[in-house]
């Protein structure tokens, strides 16, 4: 029996009310169609291709429609998961999209980059039944299916805008948080302007997360949608330098401000050799590759990037995976991923780790760099590492890696990408008197995402430290509600 026939049979039973949970457990989890592991090493196109209609409906039929819907608790923005999934079963994709949109404004993004296995899919009853989170209903993929369907229909989703209130709101930074605030505040009828430092809006979604994971056209559609709603976007504007927060409020008449400038202060390891030519922060490496399109250098793009043969990427998060997989696409023959804990502790999404391995990236786990070695011209030619073993759990609950003395070894590389995290960019803090920060330099906010200053709200990575797209969106929602309430009273 092929998939179509299976679907038909199951749908008939479903309609007749005779599809039992046991039958649903028996439906094979639908694999994500993806680009071939070898072919994709030399292109930047999206790796995961998305479900077709049959696959989506089969996967949707695996959902039990649990009364208590534990999956919802796992989603930071509380999408009504079982409700939209049942609409997929019925083939009502438009309705499904509407349900998702009630809570999430960027479903095409979240369906692609949310760490579902630790959020909505972790508590899913189906996964629990099999004692394997990989067996959970693929909520994220279904979300992606629905939103891609909507995009194909050119379904016009521009939300309605209330009558003008005469109040002005400034949004600093055009990442996912800023986009959500802009939408929700504009809906309420306020005059909204986004100020973005880069020459292209979208935040990490355009400069950090690579094309092969999140096509830039999707982000652009969201930006276009904002402009259609009447949101103004001023590019090449560094808040704190071009104008300060105070100037925006006192001179330019903005009644409220949302600060969503992201984290973006790259951390280095402070080891010998980090200044050598060929050593990059992941931010620089990915910005050159994504935002500046260095993969097209010589074919139109003017920004160069190292022409590497052997690359070491240090770190174990999404940023490290993205860097390593970018290096592969830029033509590196060997890419090593060096991480000081074991695979279990890796913060990267399981799917990305899996993709990285398929693409031939070599994992060096429980290893950490000791120094980077250069040649006479100051160019990297090797990295010296130490082996580690896992000791007692530390404050984060993860077992602490302890170096093994005398275990040094070197790997020949010509490029090193450091992907060990970001601190808070200090610019806004330094230029805004009275804005309270915590000891790491992140902006402190209350439950409504309000800062220590009246009318000034903040969210996303500048508040949470390096977090996720969906958390930034969640805070954006909260901040927008706060701003709307504040302006209603003002």
């Amino acid at each position, binding site marked *: 029996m092929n998939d179509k026939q299976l679907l038909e049979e199951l749908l008939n039973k479903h309609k007749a009310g005779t599809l039992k949970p046991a039958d649903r457990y028996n439906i094979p989890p639908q694999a994500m169609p993806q680009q071939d592991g070898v072919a994709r090493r030399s292109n930047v196109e999206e790796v995961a291709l998305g479900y077709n209609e049959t696959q989506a409906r089969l996967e949707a039929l695996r959902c039990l429609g649990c009364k208590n819907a534990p999956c919802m608790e796992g989603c930071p923005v509380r999408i009504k998961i079982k409700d939209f999934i049942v609409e997929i079963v019925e083939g009502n994709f438009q309705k499904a999209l509407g349900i998702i949109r009630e809570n999430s404004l960027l479903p095409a993004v979240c369906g692609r980059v949310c760490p579902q296995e630790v959020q909505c899919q972790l508590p899913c009853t189906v996964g629990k039944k099999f004692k394997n989170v990989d067996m959970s209903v693929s909520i994220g993929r279904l979300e992606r299916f629905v939103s891609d369907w909507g995009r194909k229909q050119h379904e016009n989703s521009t939300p309605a805008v209330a009558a003008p209130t005469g109040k002005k709101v400034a949004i600093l930074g055009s990442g996912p948080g800023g986009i959500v605030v802009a939408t929700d505040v504009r809906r309420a009828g306020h005059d909204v302007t986004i100020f973005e430092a880069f020459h292209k809006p979208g935040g990490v979604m355009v400069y950090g997360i690579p094309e092969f994971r999140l096509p830039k056209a999707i982000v652009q559609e969201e930006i276009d949608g904002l402009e259609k709603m009447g949101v103004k976007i001023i590019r090449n504007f560094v808040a704190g330098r071009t104008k300060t927060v105070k100037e925006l409020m006192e001179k330019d008449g903005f009644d409220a401000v949302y600060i969503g400038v992201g984290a973006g202060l790259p951390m280095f390891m402070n080891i010998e050799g980090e200044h050598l030519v060929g050593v990059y922060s992941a931010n620089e490496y990915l910005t050159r590759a994504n935002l500046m399109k260095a993969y097209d250098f010589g074919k139109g793009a003017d920004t160069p990037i190292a022409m590497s043969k052997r690359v070491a990427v240090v770190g174990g998060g999404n940023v490290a995976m993205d860097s390593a997989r970018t290096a592969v696409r830029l033509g590196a023959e060997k890419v090593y991923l060096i991480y000081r804990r074991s695979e279990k502790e890796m913060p990267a999404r399981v799917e990305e780790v899996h993709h990285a391995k398929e693409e031939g990236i070599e994992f060096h786990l429980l290893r950490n760099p000791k120094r980077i070695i250069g040649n006479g011209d*100051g160019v990297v030619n090797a990295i010296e590492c130490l082996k580690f073993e896992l000791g007692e759990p530390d404050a984060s609950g993860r077992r602490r890696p302890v170096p093994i003395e005398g275990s040094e070894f070197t790997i020949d590389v010509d490029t090193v990408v450091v992907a060990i995290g970001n601190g808070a960019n200090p610019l806004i803090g330094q230029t805004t008197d009275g804005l309270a920060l915590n000891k790491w330099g992140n902006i402190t906010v209350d439950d409504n995402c309000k800062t220590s200053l009246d009318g000034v709200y903040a969210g996303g990575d500048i508040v949470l430290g390096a977090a996720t797209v969906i958390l930034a969106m969640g805070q954006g929602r909260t901040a927008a509600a706060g701003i709307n309430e504040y302006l209603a009273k003002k």
Partner: protein
Amino acid sequence: MSHKILSKKELCKDVYIADIEAPLVAAAAKPGQFVIICLQTTYSERIPLTIAGTDEKNGSIRLIWQAVGKSTAEFGHLKVGDELENVLGPLGKPTHIENFGTVVCVGGGIGNAPLLPIAKGMKQAGNKVISILGARNKSLLILEDDFKAISDELIIVTDDGSYGRKAVVTVPLDEICQSQKVDMVVAIGPAIMMKFASQTAVKHNIPVVVSLNTIMIDGTGMCGGCRVEVGGQTKFVCVDGPEFDGSKVNFDLMMKRMQAYKKQEQQALEEYKHKCKIGLDK
């Protein structure tokens, strides 16, 4: 926002001066700060250039640049009325200007451009300003008249003796530091010049400020590509600088880092020149 080129001319071979519409930057800029321009959004490189002057009434900024590679050459080929898609700024910390007493301003090559607003600022703050301008030869000397107008004393040196004294800038700098009380040296130019000017100042126990022109991408402290070692610590030129205490900068390391893309840059420039010659791109 569009950024129209309001006026433009070639100061000397491959060195251009232009006034560009950028009202927000013009209103906020202070001496020592810079912008990052990007000619076209999709594919162009981001090029940091010092703000050599502003006209707030006109809403324009003045840029002076040397065509050293593909992007600066392409910029040089634009005409009055053309538009840049992106101008970001002002970036970096402004120069610390106060009445120090006697300030020697040392400029080398294109470094005269970023030096001019600083020298002006120093003069306005009440300093005695002695300017030393160096160039490889007479035809490459820029902004002589502007410096003459604001300096108490102006010394010109050229490598080949075709104009002014035949010397490098450190020779008159050394003499001045010996013969009178100097309170501050500001040196801007090629890294190698800044290195030796700093050494000269240090020899005489005079504080020295330099302005670094490392390779940059974002200019907001996000990428770390502009990092340099200052006093053994890592600093980001775009947010911690561009000016630093010249006695503490590791110039050798910086010079190596500036060579990072030499091969690719040459390739890009060759291809661009070729295209221009056969008239495809202009």
